[in-house]
């Protein structure tokens, strides 16, 4: 009797596409998109889960963009295409190309060129809303391996001002698609139920001893991966 009631309830949830809240094991491991960083992929069980909204968060200079670019490089190397919504136009194509991104396979959606550090709140707010609509269009279009929403320079207060349903709706649109929706921000924004949040912190990797030979060659990154039920420390790894 109880099992038929459970079955009925599960069927109802499935019909309304709310079955992801059920605590049953999936039949097969979900498809993933590797990040391109072995230690992080190991913790993420292969990479970012497709059909989910995941996040890369951390303070300024913590390696968020480097991880995003590594994911883009991995996706384009696999023959996929990437949609990048660059909220305030901060993407550096030359650096991405050096990191192995196939630029021909990146759809770059550039937001307004505003100095977000000095811009009026209304301008930033408008840029965020525009970018969010662009993300929605990209995810709905389907066929993208990764859709990245880069709000790394947007102060969290602007994102907190968005309706809470925004992220649920985005997760709902992306559910079941072979697309990784990746949010890059300063603080956790709106990961989906089975998505992961990767918190980063980095130290600069400097080489050279003399002033002439000194170089900033990369980051030594420490990461903490959070999912719905557990959190794991990762690293350090180099980017």
């Amino acid at each position: 009797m109880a099992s038929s009631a459970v079955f009925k309830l599960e069927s109802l949830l499935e019909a309304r596409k709310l079955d992801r809240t059920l605590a049953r094991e999936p039949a097969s491991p979900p498809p993933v998109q590797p990040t391109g960083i072995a230690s992080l992929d190991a913790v993420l069980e292969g990479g970012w889960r497709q059909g989910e909204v995941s996040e890369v968060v951390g303070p300024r200079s913590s390696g968020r963009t480097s991880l995003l670019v590594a994911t883009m490089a991995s996706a384009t190397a696999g023959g996929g295409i990437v949609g990048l919504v660059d909220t305030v136009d901060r993407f550096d194509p030359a650096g991405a190309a050096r990191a192995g991104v196939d630029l021909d396979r990146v759809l770059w959606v550039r937001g307004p060129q505003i100095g977000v550090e000095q811009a009026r709140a209304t301008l930033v707010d408008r840029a965020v809303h525009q970018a969010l609509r662009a993300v929605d269009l990209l995810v709905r279009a389907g066929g993208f391996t990764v859709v990245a929403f880069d709000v790394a320079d947007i102060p969290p207060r602007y994102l907190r001002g968005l309706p809470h349903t925004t992220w649920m709706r985005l997760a709902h649109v992306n559910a079941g698609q072979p697309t990784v929706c990746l949010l890059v921000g300063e603080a956790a924004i709106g990961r989906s139920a089975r998505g992961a949040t990767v918190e980063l912190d980095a130290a600069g990797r400097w080489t050279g001893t003399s002033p002439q030979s000194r170089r900033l060659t990369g980051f030594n990154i420490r990461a903490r991966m959070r999912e719905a039920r557990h959190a794991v420390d990762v690293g350090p790894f180099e980017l």
Partner: protein
Amino acid sequence: MFCCLVLETPASPPGALADVARACSPRVELIGDRVAVFDARGLGRVLGPRDDIVLAVRRLAVERGVPIRVAIAPTATAAQILAHAGTKEIKDTGSLFLKCLFSETDSRCLDDTLDIFRRWGLRTCGDIARLPRADVAARLGAWGIALHQAACGEDTGPLVPMQEARRFLERIDLEWPIEGLEPLAFVLARLCDGHALALERADRGAVTVTTRLTLVTRTVHERVLHVPAPMRDARVLRTLIVLDLESHPPAAGIDAVEIELGVVPGRIAQGSLLTRTLPTPETLTTLIARLGALMGESRVGAPSLVDSHDARAVAMTRFAPGDAEPRNEPRHSGTCLRRLRFPLAAVVTTEHGAPIAVTPSARSLPGGAVIDRAGPWRSSGRWWTDDRRQWDRDDWDVELNHGARLRLSRDRATGQWAVAGIFD
């Protein structure tokens, strides 16, 4: 009765020869770019005997500025040979003109066979035609028969008239002027549905969409859309037109709507099991049009590298990813820069020219003491021009005490410092 036109100079405008032939007869076959054959039966009743027909065709061609050679004969093959020879009657070495009937890929076999005829002392078409065909076939095989048929002026197949190029044009004259895009979208939907059906039947896809709106001011608002891949989906076409008109709206009410399509043969797509499935061209085109309407047309595309020493230079190209095999290239690690397109002014304290403390002009980007630095990297360019794109600066990579890693740049002309990017 067939008439053949041969273009004398290849520099004539494309389609001119076909136009001349079409003006004479509806049954026209184009053979390559230089030859047209048309069915001249019945022209005698209008123009008179053969010579008059030839004169009339030649006059028409002269009027249209198309230099041609014309010949008329009972068969298309004979007309072609005569037109290439440029005479009424082929005499000595006329057999050489038989080559005009065959493609260039067959020229070697033809030359060999004609050489044999020459060695046999046969120089004219008549000489070859007088041979018994069975004997020619026994000695020279298929090529011998083909040349013998041609020498006899026999057609090996019927004339295949080409279809007249069809215009894909739909127009609606409205009873009342409409204003605004919403009511216009319904009209466009009707026109696009008709177009989609016509394209489907003709196995064609639209590559250009020309929208002409006749306005109440008696002016015509014309927009031309170039579609990256041939498409015939009515909804996609309508969406593209509406999005384009949203960006470029007409200045007044609309009296008449006309949509004309430029078409090419339909697209045949073959998927691969080994490559990832990409969005269809229709989906991508609609998506880019929607994104363009949202963000601005110039703000959507694929990033591309600029051949410049100016690290700030960026460019975009049309996003058109093709199928790609997965590759396993080694990834190059390195710092990624978040580039400030408008560098943020900063006050920088220096010691022996090197930055030791930074205070950006924005409070949201905290300053601090420099704990590590690299530089300066000097670059300059476009100093030979007067435009605003010239630059001359020293770049420094610095790490501040609170962990931020910045790229600073110092304009050498003004001495001003700015934050050009943030390493992240």
